[in-house]
């Protein structure tokens, strides 16, 4: 049985990496097959136990929320404001945009952030007559780094915080500072790489030509949407004292938003949810649930423990680097989903790993930041590069992407490694 489950997992992984078949369908067929061949003694119970419905509901809610908010023009408004404030020099503008991207994608889906900011970037690059490539790359990196900062920024974090039951505020307390530093260093490394492109200056009048009020179609709606967005962020901040599960806030955000702003369009908005992603998770949950059931997770955990040879310091480093490099090639979601039960099971294997909290942060850092490594490492990369090819005709090959990303990821992982070791001491 172990072999069958492992084989199913590798097959699904193969399809995901090569993209030969639709990954959702591959994952669903794999997962359901495991149910059908009765990996779980009672498939019905197995299903219930493997599926993390919190994550699924949270994603559904947030996807609807972002779609609804989009219609108010609030995202474009933020983008144009940034350009105006950032002023006259390109490096300054670059820092401003990437930090805003980082901030926004800390709260909403990275892909959505990219979808909003890349078109704005093109508009800017057209007017200023500059090369959009460094900006798009910077935005992609920033979106992944920013996503690492909060439990809701990147899917692996959703999975990790949901499994480890780390509260929102606690998570950002430890993750924001380190990632701000990483983001800064990543920006610096891109500035150095693209020194020539960043050497131009612009006048103030020129920037004033942008009109942020134009993107707001209905003022009333804009104000209402901003209020609602602050309310949702507020809920996330008060999550711990209110004892609210992330999924509930996500559902409130999505469904209430839908009722308030688009009551006539409920069905179309429901169809706009990335169901493909939701069902990919669903299939994956079943597969990883099965892997846990037959004991594969325990084997991996044992392997990691053996490598670490009893030293928590080594284990943390192994997690950071292994997850960072692997999730550069493999979707970081399955990887995180695979590792979660492993880490969860560690204390039962060996007593010196009783404090697993730092390991959760090490996993989050590695899995999210590693996504920057290749063009397929994260969805934001795929989307950003696709748009650039479609609208600007500029294609960045696998190898040249890595040329830019390698330094960024290396810095990120070194920082993460050091930081995780610090957490090991203080947590």
């Amino acid at each position: 049985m172990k072999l069958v489950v492992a084989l199913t997992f590798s097959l699904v992984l193969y399809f995901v990496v090569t993209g030969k078949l639709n990954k959702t369908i591959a994952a669903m067929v794999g997962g359901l097959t495991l149910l059908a061949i009765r990996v779980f003694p009672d498939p019905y119970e197995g299903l219930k136990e493997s599926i993390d419905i919190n994550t699924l509901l949270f994603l559904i809610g947030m996807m609807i929320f972002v779609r609804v908010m989009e219609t108010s023009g609030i995202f474009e408004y933020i983008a144009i404001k940034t350009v105006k404030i950032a002023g006259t020099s390109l490096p300054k503008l670059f820092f401003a945009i990437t930090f805003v991207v980082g901030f926004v994608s800390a709260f909403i889906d990275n892909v959505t952030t990219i979808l909003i900011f890349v078109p704005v970037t093109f508009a800017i690059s057209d007017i200023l007559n500059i090369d959009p490539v460094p900006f798009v790359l910077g935005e992609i990196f920033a979106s992944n780094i920013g996503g690492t900062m909060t439990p809701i920024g990147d899917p692996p974090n959703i999975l990790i915080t949901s499994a480890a039951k780390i509260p929102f505020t606690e998570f950002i307390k430890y993750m924001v500072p380190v990632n701000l530093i990483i983001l800064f260093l990543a920006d610096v490394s891109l500035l150095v790489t693209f020194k020539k492109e960043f050497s131009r200056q612009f006048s103030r009048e020129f920037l004033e030509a942008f009109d942020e009020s134009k993107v707001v179609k209905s003022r009333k709606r804009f104000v209402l949407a901003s209020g609602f967005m602050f309310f949702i962020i507020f809920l996330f901040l008060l999550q711990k004292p209110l004892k609210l599960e992330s999924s509930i806030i996500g559902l409130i955000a999505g469904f209430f938003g839908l009722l308030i702003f688009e009551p006539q369009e409920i069905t179309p908005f429901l169809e706009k949810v990335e169901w493909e992603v939701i069902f990919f998770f669903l299939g994956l949950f079943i597969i990883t649930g099965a892997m846990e059931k037959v004991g594969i997770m325990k084997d991996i955990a044992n392997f990691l423990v053996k490598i670490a040879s009893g030293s928590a310091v080594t284990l943390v480093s192994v997690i950071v680097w292994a997850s960072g490099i692997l999730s550069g090639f493999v979707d970081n979601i399955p990887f995180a989903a695979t590792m979660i039960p492993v880490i969860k099971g560690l204390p039962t294997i060996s007593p010196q790993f009783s404090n697993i909290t730092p390991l959760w942060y090490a996993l989050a850092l590695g899995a999210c930041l590693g996504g920057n490594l290749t063009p397929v490492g994260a969805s934001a990369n795929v989307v950003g590069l696709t748009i650039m090819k479609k609208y600007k005709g500029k294609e960045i090959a696998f190898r040249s992407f890595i040329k830019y990303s390698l330094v960024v990821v290396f810095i990120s992982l070194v920082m993460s490694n050091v930081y995780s070791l610090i957490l090991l001491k203080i947590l």
Partner: protein
Amino acid sequence: MIGIVLLLYAVAYAYIIFLPQISSVTTFLFGLTSVLVIGNFDFSRLSLIIDFNTLFILLGMMTLVSILKENGVFVEISKIILKASRGRVYVAIFFIYFAIFFLSSFLDNVTTILIFIPILFYISDALQIDSKLLLINAVLFSNLGGMTTAIGDPPNIIIYSVSRLSFISFITHLMPVGIALLIVQFIFLGRKLRAEAVNTIFQSSVENDTSENRKWQYYLLAFVFIVTLMVFHEELGIELGTIIMLGAMSVLFVEGKNFQSVVDEIDWDTLILISGLYLLNFSIEHLNFYRPFVSVLSKISSPYLLVLSILWSSIFLTGFLSALPVTLMYLVIIKKLVLMGAPNTLYWALAIGVGIGGNLTPIASMCNIVGNNLFKNLKNERLTFLQFTKNMLKPVLLSGIISSAFLLVFSFTGF
């Protein structure tokens, strides 16, 4: 606390009845709020409330229907029907009703309505038959067909998931009832149609259609194979939800399609509505709201009376509250009663009651609403609430009486 939950329940139902367009989302939010209100609930256990088997069956069936539709299976079936009737109107109409009944028993009722009502209207136009009569009967047969199997319509899917009776036992109990109702209804319909004097031959363009496309047969075959697996699901030890979902995904897999291609065809509203109803029901069950009902009903000493009261009350309640809410409400009670030793016949009574009651008013089931909309779009007419109910009352009462007889036999023989 029970007051708040009941209030949420009532408001949620008010939305379902009066504002059905947004009721899926409101029901879900009210359900979520009710679970929050009762408190102390570990949300990681949410999957224990929202039943994945139900959702998988619905989702899988919707996917399969969209695949079958896309590959022209339904068009081909209606072509075959028209060809086989050789232009005899009488025969064509009955063949179509037959198809509606049996396709609805395995597929979504709304889909079958959408396919066949335009054809019926075409016939009624050509021969001046009362289109209202044809519409009403189409809706009726679709609802009755849906009642006959575990996957025929959403209420049955839910009853299956909760009762965990097998696919086979659904068919063996409900199909005979359905067929009896079908036959009786055919006799009445035959009289009416004769009164309209239609023995004429009509020409249809289909007969000259010689386009050959064999691909649809493979899809039909795949579907029949999946249904066969369902029949043996108990022996295989696999849940229906797993079989259907795996079947649907495998077809997409073989076709090399992606999941996004079927997303638009899936009725997300229904799925969310059902999840919301599950949540509402969980909290109300948690507070033991149904206990007085259960104890009153368990005092009914005669099993015959119990079965009949469930049948008839669910028929009339469904007419006004629509099928899904009634099903879930009753299931909570019936599950308790069966645990206390009542026979499984109660489940059949509920399935039949909800199936028949779904005909009573134009809002009682989805296919009534869709049928009426089609009527408006294609013929520019519309059945009012009263007209619809007036036309349906007789068949509904008749069906109720016939199935009462069946249920009494079930109770008597312990079948």
